[in-house]
C-alpha cells in the first residue's frame, strides 16, 4: 500500500492538468518526476480519476521508454549513444561506469538506490561528444576515467 501522501500528490498533479484523457502522459511525467518512478497503484488511481481504462493507462505507460515502474536511483546517469557520441567512443564510457557500479544491461540500479545507468540516443550536445547526462545536467567530452571520477565525486557528496 502506498502512503496517503502519494494520492494527495496525484490529486494535485491531476488538478493542474485537468481531468481529461489527454492529460494522461503529462500526469505520468509529473508523478515520475516527483517519485523517480511510476508506482503502479498510482497509475491505476490516475486512470480512474481521468476516465481512461486501467488497460489503456498501462498500454501507454509501457509504450514510452521514459516511464519506469521500478524505482530509479537518486542520480540517473544517461550515457549518450547517439551517432556522434558512438563514433567518438561512448560505449567504453558506459562500460567503465557499469563496471565501477557493478551494474549491467540487466541490472540498472545500484542496491543503495543511488545510481541508475541508462543509455540515450542523443542529448543534443553532439559537438562535445561523447556526452552523458546526470539528472538534468549534461557532461561533455567524457572518457572512462572522467566518468569514474564523476561517480566518485557524486558518492563523496553523499557521504559529506
Amino acid at each position, binding site marked *: 500500500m502506498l502512503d496517503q501522501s502519494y494520492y494527495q500528490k496525484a490529486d494535485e498533479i491531476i488538478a493542474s492538468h485537468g481531468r481529461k484523457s489527454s492529460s494522461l502522459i503529462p500526469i505520468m511525467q509529473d508523478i515520475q518526476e516527483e517519485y523517480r518512478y511510476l508506482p503502479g497503484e498510482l497509475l491505476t488511481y490516475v486512470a480512474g480519476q481521468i476516465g481512461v481504462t486501467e488497460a489503456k493507462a498501462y498500454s501507454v505507460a509501457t*509504450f*514510452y521508454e521514459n516511464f519506469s515502474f521500478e524505482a530509479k536511483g537518486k542520480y540517473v546517469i544517461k550515457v549518450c549513444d*547517439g551517432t556522434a557520441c558512438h*563514433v567518438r567512443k561512448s560505449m567504453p564510457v558506459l562500460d567503465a561506469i557499469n563496471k565501477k557500479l557493478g551494474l549491467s544491461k540487466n541490472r540498472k540500479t545500484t542496491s543503495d538506490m543511488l545510481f541508475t545507468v541508462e543509455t540515450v*540516443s542523443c542529448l543534443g550536445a553532439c559537438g*562535445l*561528444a561523447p556526452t552523458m*547526462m546526470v539528472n538534468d545536467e549534461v557532461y561533455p567530452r567524457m572518457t572512462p576515467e572522467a566518468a569514474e571520477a564523476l561517480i566518485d565525486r557524486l558518492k563523496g557528496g553523499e557521504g559529506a
Partner: protein
Amino acid sequence: MIESREALHQTREEAKKVLDSYDCRILVCSGTGCIATGSEKIYEKFVEICKDAPGIFLEFAPHDTGEHVGVKKTGCQGICELGPLVRIQKKDKVIQYTKVQEDDCAEIFERSVLGDEVIESLLYKQKGISYQAPEEIPFIAKQTRIALANCGKFDAESLSEYIASGGFTAFTKALFEMTEDEIIEEVDRSGLRGRGGGGFPAGKKWKQVARQKETVRYVVCNGDEGDPGAFMDGSVMEGDPYRLIEGMMIAAYAVKASDGYIYVRAEYPMSVKRLRHAIAELERCGLLGDHIMGSDFCFHLHINRGAGAFVCGEGSALTASIEGNRGMPRVKPPRTVEKGLWEKPTVLNNVETFANVPQIILNGADWYRSIGTVGSPGTKTFSLTGAIENTGLIEVPMGTTLREIIFDIGGGMKDGGTFKAVQIGGPSGGCLTEEHLDVPLDFDSVKKYGAIVGSGGLVVMDEHTCMVEVARFFMSFTQRESCGKCVPCREGTKRMLEILEKIVAGKGELSDLDRLQELAEMVKSMALCGLGKSAPLPVLSTLKLFRSEYEEHITQHRCRAKVCEAMKRYVINPEFCRGCSKCAKNCPVGAISGQIKKCYHINPDICIHCGACKDNCAFDAIYIED
C-alpha cells in the same frame, strides 16, 4: 499589456532605448553545449564581477551615471567545440572569445569591458590566424543565418530584446496588412519546404488545411528531434523561442486555428524551460490569448513533452501522443491536413520550418527564393559533428556542397584524419563519400545518391569508423525504436539487425549480403510509416558504397577501421614483453601461455578479443594486428 499595434511599436521603441543604453554587453552562450562546458558559472561570475565593480550598473535606470554593462545568456553561438563561448559587444565592435574559464572573467572584464583591449589567447584561431569579430571567423563567415539569425546575439529569454530586434513585426504585418489567403500565398510562393526531413512544401500544407470544411483547426510544431546526431531544432527552441512562436502564430492566423501545440523531445529540458518561459511572457503581455492586439485573432499555445519514443517524430504518431495515446503511426490517407490532431485539420510543421516563416512574411517570397536553389529555396541548418575540426551548429544556403561544409566551414578533418564518409539524415538517411563532395545539398540532389537531407544531422567519419558497424548501430536504433505496429518494420529491422550482428561478430556468410539487400528493399517498400520506410536506408547506402568492407569482414575476418572487437587479433610484441605472466593471469579463457621471463604467446583460436590482456600490460607489449 500590448493591446494594439501602436502599443507594440511603443514597447519596441522603449526596448530599443534600453538596448542602446548599454555601453557594453557580455553575451554568454547558454546553448546545451556551452552549459555542459560550464557557461552558467561563467555567467554568474560576470554578474558577480559587475556587481562588485564601482560605477557599473547591470540594470537600466534612466538616472544612472556610470557605465552600463549587461550580462546576458544567449542562444547557441555555434562553435560548440570551443565552449564556453562569450561575446563582448560594444558600441563599435564585437569580440568573440572561446574556451573562457572562470579565471579568465576578471581579466576579460578589466581589459575588454572596461578597457579597449583584446585578449589574444582567448580568440578563435585557425591555421595560425586569430579572428576577433564573430562574423570574420571562417566557421561563421561562410554561413547564411535565417532560422538562427538571433541565436547568440541577445538574451534568449527576454521578450523585450526580441521585440527590440524587430520581433513580431512580421506577425503584425500578417495580422493587420494581409488576408489569410495572402499569407498562405506568400509562404507557398517562397517555396519553403518542410525542414523535418520530408521536404513537403509548407505553403501547400497550409492551403490544404485552409480548404477544409471543418472549422476547428490546429497548428502543431514538431520539436521531437529524435535523430541521433542532430540538435538544430533544440538550438532554435532554446536559442530563439519567440521566433518559433511567432512563426506558429502567423500559421495559426492564416489557417484560422485558435490552439497550437509544441511537442518537445523529453531529452531537451532546456528547450522546454525556455519555451514555457516565452509562452508565459507572451500571455502576460497579451500577445498570446484572446483577441491579440485588439484583433479577432485568438491563439493559445501548449507544450507537450515527449516521453522517449523516436517514432513520435512521425506526424500521426505525434498527434496520437498529444492525445494521450500510444505514439503509433496510422495508415494514410486521411492525411494530417484533413484529419490530424483530434481528427481535425492540422498544420504540422517542424521547428525550423516555423522559424523561417517570420522572415518570409517580412521580406517576401522573392527575397527567400533568391537564397538557395530553385527546387529548394532558403537555408538549412545542420549539426556538424564527428571527426571534424570544428563541430557545431551551422546554417547554409540550400545547394551548398559537402566540400564547402566540411573543409571551409568545418575546417577539415580532425587530427589529420582522412575523409571517408559523411552520414546524413540519421537513421533515416545514408552516406555520402568522397565522390559526392561536390553534390549540392538540397532535397532533390541528395536523394539521387541514396541519402536524404533529412532533419540535418551531418556526422563526419574518417578511417577509424567501420561502416558495417555504423550500419549495425543505426539498425539497432531503429529496431529498438520500431513501434511494432506493422510487420515489415517490426520483423524486418530485427532480422536485418541479426544479420549485421552476425557479420560484425565475424560469423557472416556472403549469402547474408543478398538476404540483407532483399530484406532492406522489402521494408523500404512495405513499411507503414515514413520512419519504417527509411529505416533500411543506412544499410542500403553502406552496402552500395562500402560493399568491400562488408566482404572483408566476412571472407578475411578483417575490420580495416579496427573497430569490430571480434576481428581484432591481439599479438604480443617480443621486443617489449618481459615475460611477467600478468596477461596470462588476466586472460579469462586461458588463451595466453608462456614461460616466466620469456615472451608470452596468445592463441588466436581461443582468444575472445576482450582486450583484458592489453589493458593490463605494464609494458605496452600487446597490440592489435592490422
